[in-house]
């Protein structure tokens, strides 16, 4: 007998507060799997944002810090500078990063902080009930864009993986998604690579994950996965925007 898949040991028994079908669950799981596979549990400090993933500290048997809304990169800077040998994971939502925390993430990129950012882009504010994020798609309906996002008040969606890749301090930037088994595999590979770069002492490693928020989008989970293919990836192309590890070869 062999076990093909078993819930990672690094998870606690805590019931997860995510909605059914939420991408956070998948991404959390991948992080757990990688930490376990790569023997990083002992070295990890996970930094969680304010957003739907704020309770994730309760899901992992690792050191965890919940940062204030938008400030995870600042807290991560403090942690990583203090413990340069640790695996510091700065986990952020799109409201958290692109709106409240724009200054923090830009400057983490500018300084080239040597931690990994896992950026969960679900193009909406999940936790607070479905308001617009800067990443919300044009014409997307949210509680603060009830007639769809329009140029006039809110401008256009912001492509963070591209912007961050343009900063000198960024070592690696890739956009992935978790809407199919194959894409989930690629997401895992991307996060794994980011962790590897971090443990090698490279600059900022940044993984943007397009993630379904069925509740915020007001659709069934499977429809959410499809919407990622049909609409979300059109604004946010998947791919590697920078990989200094690759270039070095």
């Amino acid at each position, binding site marked *: 007998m062999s076990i093909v898949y078993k819930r990672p040991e690094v998870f606690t028994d805590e019931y997860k507060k995510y909605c059914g079908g939420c991408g956070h669950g998948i991404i959390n*799981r991948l992080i757990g799997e990688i930490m376990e596979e790569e023997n990083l549990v002992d070295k990890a400090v996970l930094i969680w944002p304010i957003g739907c993933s704020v309770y994730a500290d309760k899901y992992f048997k690792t050191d965890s810090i919940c940062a204030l809304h938008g400030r995870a990169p600042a807290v991560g800077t403090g942690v990583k500078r203090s413990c340069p040998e640790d695996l510091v994971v700065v986990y952020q939502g799109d409201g958290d990063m692109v709106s409240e925390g724009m200054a923090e993430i830009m400057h983490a990129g500018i300084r080239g902080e040597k931690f990994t950012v896992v950026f969960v882009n679900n193009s909406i504010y999940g936790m607070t009930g479905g308001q617009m994020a800067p990443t919300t798609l044009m014409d997307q309906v949210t509680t603060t864009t009830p007639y769809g996002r329009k140029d006039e008040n809110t401008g256009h969606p912001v492509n963070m993986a591209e912007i961050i890749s343009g900063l000198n301090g960024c070592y690696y930037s890739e956009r992935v998604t978790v809407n199919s088994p194959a894409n989930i595999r690629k997401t895992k590979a991307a996060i794994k690579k980011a962790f590897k770069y971090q443990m090698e002492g490279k600059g900022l490693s940044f993984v943007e994950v397009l993630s379904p928020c069925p509740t915020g989008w007001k659709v069934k989970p499977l429809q959410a996965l499809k919407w990622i293919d049909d609409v979300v990836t059109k604004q946010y192309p998947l791919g590697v925007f920078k990989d200094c590890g690759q270039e070095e070869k």
Partner: protein
Amino acid sequence: MNRVTVDREMCKECEYCLHFCPKGTILKKSTTVNKMGYYPAEAVDMTDCIACGICASVCPEGAITVEKNI
């Protein structure tokens, strides 16, 4: 024989496992709710299961265990 086990109380009825299972006969939605009020997925027929692990790999809850050749 392979075995897929779904933790009934963890499942939140997203149907990802059902949808992505390449076989389609293995998992089904339960007809009764769990404590949180969801109709969880359950493995009903292991005959065709190839233990590919896809159901587990898409499950946001980590609710699924897949065992091969039990």
